[in-house]
């Protein structure tokens, strides 16, 4: 009897100790969460209703920033550019990474070496690699134009051309990110149950049949995940734009985050910049939700 009470008491104190240590151990993360995410999010909403400019006293201006932005041509231009970038970037990076992953998922020799090489650009600083791309794209002395003229083709303006600037930037992003998505696809492909292929081999299916009826359907969850990640990342593109074009020529590559950066940290119109940040936030949330709804229709989760 006495022993039993001691045991119960010991268990209770242990549970209470657990409770205390639990809260103590997660406290730093939640202090960080409160100070650097939750409070700033609400503060950002407040700033969007003010004329905050880091100089004059802060005044509540109601919907003025919102009205200004939604009636200006700026927002359409910036959104159009961002969607143009995303529409170039997502198919490019998804197709390239999928092709590389399929090639490296065969029984070919040296897959590790290839994988290491394809992934390399992903870990490098966008700022540093942008410099070499500036050099490659250079209209006067760049190697791309040297190759074009050696082939007898007309030279191009690339980053300085209204129509080519965005594709040129997107190409750099594709080059840098394809290796990352390739690794995700390789993981997805290696997760497919080999018995499917054994069964189809007996049925005499060829490579294309396997691709169409096994690999691609079974890979759809990975494909779905990759598209979401690529969209979220692509919509927030900044480093490449800042280094390669600074939004030019004539605002042809001015995307959302580039515009937020200029508005907030060049012109110090914090209220307006916060409205743009919220537009970005809402679009990312909406697309994520829409894609989660749509996935039920076409994604196969049996893999």
């Amino acid at each position, binding site marked *: 009897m006495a022993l039993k009470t001691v045991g119960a008491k010991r268990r209770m104190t242990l*549970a209470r100790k*657990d*409770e205390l*240590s*639990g809260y103590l*151990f*997660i406290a730093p*993360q939640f202090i*960080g*969460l409160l*100070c*650097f*995410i939750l*409070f*700033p*999010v609400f*503060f*950002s909403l407040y700033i969007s209703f003010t004329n*905050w400019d*880091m100089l004059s006293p802060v005044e509540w201006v109601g919907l003025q920033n919102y009205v200004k932005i939604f009636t200006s041509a700026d927002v359409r231009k910036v959104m159009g550019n961002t969607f143009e970038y995303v529409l170039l970037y997502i198919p490019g990076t998804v197709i390239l990474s999928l092709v*590389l992953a399929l*090639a490296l998922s*065969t029984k*070919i020799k*040296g897959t590790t070496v290839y*994988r290491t090489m*394809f*992934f*390399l650009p992903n*870990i*490098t*600083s966008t*700022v*540093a*690699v942008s*410099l*070499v791309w500036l*050099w*490659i794209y250079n209209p006067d*002395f760049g*190697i791309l134009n040297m190759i074009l003229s050696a082939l007898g083709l007309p030279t191009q303006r690339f980053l300085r051309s209204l129509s080519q600037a965005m594709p040129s930037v997107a190409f750099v992003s594709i*080059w840098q990110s394809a290796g*990352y998505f390739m*690794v*995700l696809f*390789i*993981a997805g492909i290696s997760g497919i149950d080999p018995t499917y292929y054994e069964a189809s081999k007996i049925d005499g299916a060829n490579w294309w049949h396997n691709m169409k009826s096994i690999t691609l359907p079974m890979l759809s969850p990975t494909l779905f*995940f990759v598209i979401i*990640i690529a969209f979220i990342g692509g919509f*927030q593109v900044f480093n490449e734009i800042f*280094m390669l074009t600074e939004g030019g020529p004539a605002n042809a590559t001015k995307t*959302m985050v580039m515009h937020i*950066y200029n508005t*907030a940290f060049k012109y110090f119109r914090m209220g307006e*910049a916060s409205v743009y*940040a*919220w537009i*970005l*936030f809402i679009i*990312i949330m909406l697309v994520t939700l829409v894609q989660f709804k749509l996935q039920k229709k076409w994604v196969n989760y049996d893999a």
Partner: protein
Amino acid sequence: MHKKITRTQLLHAVLHLCLIFFAFGTLFPFLWMVSTSLKGNASVFEYPPVIIPKEFLWSNYAEVFQKQDMLSGLLNSVKIASINTVGTLFFASLAAYAFAKLKFRFSNTLFMILIATMMIPGQVTLIPMFIIFKNLGWYDTHMPLMIPSILCNAYGVFLLRQFFASIPDAYSDSAHIDGCGRFRIYWSIMLPLCVPALVTLGLFNFMANWNNFLTPLIYLNSYSKYTIPLVVMSFKNLYSANWSLLMAASCVALAPVIVLYMFTQRYFISGIMIGGIKG
């Protein structure tokens, strides 16, 4: 003996050719960067271009270290990335251990809240944080690059929680009976079992901090405080036509990361395969 080439062998040969083509395309910018960095001012603009210069001009590298604050940039980046990585690993693993192994009220709700915040894009908090840090007197210091990064890493907590959860309770039960405190169990039993996960998360964290551009761009003002990406940016602004110097600066900025990657690439690949970490 005459061997007949099989269809598979032929296919593999074609595949190798395609892969080598893509690999060359992927690596060409790096090759071109190194090549240009070793050229003199005249041979940079030479036509037709040569990939391997006739003589290697190492003086560009000497010039890079003399010109801007390249050395202080490297030191600043090493300092920030190392401290942030150690700090992140400690606080994230501590919280991850609590969520995986300790029973406390609302632990699931709190975990869900933490995970949900990962969906908030950084641009939303950028402006309010700038205002807060400026008022704290943290403008042009390294604090805004370090404190939030160390204290706030929901992804790290998420990834490490999975690892802690996969460790059987039997490991900690015996220590429990011996009267070890929860922190002792975390520190001397659980943490050593998680080393592979910690290395993976640490490497990604180090790279992310090393390559981070937007935060230092808005907070740092004096050259002596610049991190590597800002030093590279300032080179672009100051020596815009001196391509060999710019390429040498890029090489210096990239070399530490590429060397680290060469020795640890399997951690990167396995990290992505396990948790889809964004590089």
